[in-house]
């Protein structure tokens, strides 16, 4: 099966380690991908707040481009891209009058038209559904048997379920399946399906920082050595803002509340188990040190 990779702005911007680790892992697994070079931003749910038609047309362009390349599957590596591009695809496939309206605008501006034949799938789903966990297990040369990993799903890969529907929004299992496949132990905590606060990080930082602090400390108390997320925006919240979240937590709950929780992108977790070095997987780029985790692995 061939996939058109929709890299998303984040993997091309503030989380370049997501892009490099994805390429390493996908390359090793032999998954056939071609990158959508001329991709445009999915809008991250923000452009639609300005104008839903505009956001839909932008996503229709992405989908129509893949369609024109003769590819039926778009691979996303960002939970938010998955929610937004996948959600747009659902509307375009199911709401015919809307699709016609958007297609008129798309044709006029780009000459493209979207027929609705493409499926949008996150790497997380592709590994489970298309590639298969048994096949994946064969590539695990360095099982992470000494570490406990706390899954952080993020919002858009789960909700609203009518737009996603791959995993069970109430009790998802896909990340834990992947954690087990690489030999690690999944740990469970209340916040694993909650929000990281990313959309309001700048404007309502106190709300976002509370969320980061709560989720990370729960993951830590449940015994996690690291958290893993399929969304680079969650990664930014949980990693880049963790120190400030820790400050806030300590102000509110006392100085003994420490975090220091390494946050991994999903392909980094897989890459470690496949024997790639932390450096190859870009772990130096994290703000929270991954050294304690790496020590435990080696």
């Amino acid at each position: 099966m061939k996939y058109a990779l929709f890299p998303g702005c984040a993997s091309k911007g503030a989380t370049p380690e997501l892009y490099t680790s994805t390429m390493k892992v996908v390359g090793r697994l032999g998954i056939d991908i071609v990158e959508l070079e001329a991709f445009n931003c999915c809008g991250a749910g923000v452009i639609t707040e300005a104008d839903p038609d505009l956001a839909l047309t932008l996503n229709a362009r992405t989908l129509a481009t893949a369609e024109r390349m003769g590819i039926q599957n778009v691979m996303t590596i960002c939970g938010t891209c998955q929610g937004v591009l996948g959600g747009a695809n659902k509307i375009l496939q199911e709401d015919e009058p809307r699709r016609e309206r958007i297609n008129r605008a798309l044709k006029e501006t780009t000459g493209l038209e979207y027929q609705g034949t493409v499926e949008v799938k996150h790497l997380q789903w592709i590994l489970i559904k298309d590639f298969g966990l048994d096949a994946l297990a064969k590539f695990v040369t360095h099982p992470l048997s000494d570490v406990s990993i706390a899954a952080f799903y993020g919002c858009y890969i789960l909700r609203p379920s009518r737009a996603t529907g791959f995993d069970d929004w109430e009790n998802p299992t896909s990340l834990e399946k992947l954690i087990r496949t690489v030999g690690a132990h999944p740990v469970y905590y209340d916040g694993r399906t909650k929000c990281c606060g990313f959309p309001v990080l700048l404007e309502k930082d106190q709300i976002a920082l509370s969320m980061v602090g709560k989720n990370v400390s729960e993951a830590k108390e449940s015994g996690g050595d690291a958290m893993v997320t399929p969304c680079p925006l969650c990664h930014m919240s949980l990693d880049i803002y963790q120190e400030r979240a820790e400050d806030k937590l300590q102000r509110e709950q006392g100085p003994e509340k420490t975090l220091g929780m390494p946050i991994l992108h999903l392909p980094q977790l897989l890459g470690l188990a496949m024997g790639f070095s932390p450096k190859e997987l870009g772990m130096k780029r994290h703000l929270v040190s991954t050294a304690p985790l790496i020590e435990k692995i080696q």
Partner: protein
Amino acid sequence: MRVKLTVQKFNPDIDLKPHPQDYFVETSRGMTLLSALLKIKAETDGTLTFRASCRAAICGSCLMQVNGSQKLACKVAIKEELEHHGKIEVGPMANMPVIKDMVVRMDPFWEKIRAVTPYLLEDGGKPVPTEALKDIHKKLDNADACIMCMACLSACTSYEVSPGFLGPAALAKAYRFQADPRDQGHVDRLEKLQGPNGIWDCVRCNFCVQVCPKDVQPMEQIIRLRRRSIGAGFTDSVEAKHITEFTKVVAAEGRLNEALLPVLMTLGNIRKMIRIIPLGIKMFLHGKTPFPFKRVPGRQEIRAIFKKWEKPK
């Protein structure tokens, strides 16, 4: 079928903290969780306390936490719930002060509803032209379907960490009146929602959309209020700029430049800007600020799409 229900019991007069208690019920075909609870109350434990009235998912009384999610007990089919989760665990809805067992205090919720002026503001009783009432139901985008069950507020991740937030139901209610052609407070309503605890405190986690039993889609109504706010000229806030500047960056570059966006959003707001600078430097040192920013091919097409939907000024 004999089914085990694990219910979180709490009586403040005798219990220090909530504790789980198992009950066994003989279920009949198509039995709902509410029927099972009523049966337990009638036959096994008269002290079991919960709210319920209509038994038909219309009064909004019987909301509780079922296997971790906020649900109307009268809408939960025991058989399906058991098939889905392999167990049935019931407790009071999350994030609300518990009075007894499944009964929680509702006054925080009503305060929020009251705060959005949940009634029509008329202009001295002047009659509304009938034309304005055409398709009124459509104009309200189902925001009028709310049964005040509190599922959305209880599940709201922003409310969980920031109890002052007006929350999904109240904001959906605000939209319901803002969008009503008979209402005379359109702009005032928007203005009241700009400050702290208003429409900009929603993190777009989609929980409210997911749990609402009446498909009110509160988050979508909040987004409509945001769109209307920008349309009505409330454009100076960092929050509004997040939307307008994000859109402008993508219009110019085809994709987002995360290094640039915070700067554009906080322009003119020195306090916020100073707060993001140290982090910006740290990100730069860790190779997290793409520089030079690589542009995407096909920008002309993207610009044409933006131009196409541009609103006449």
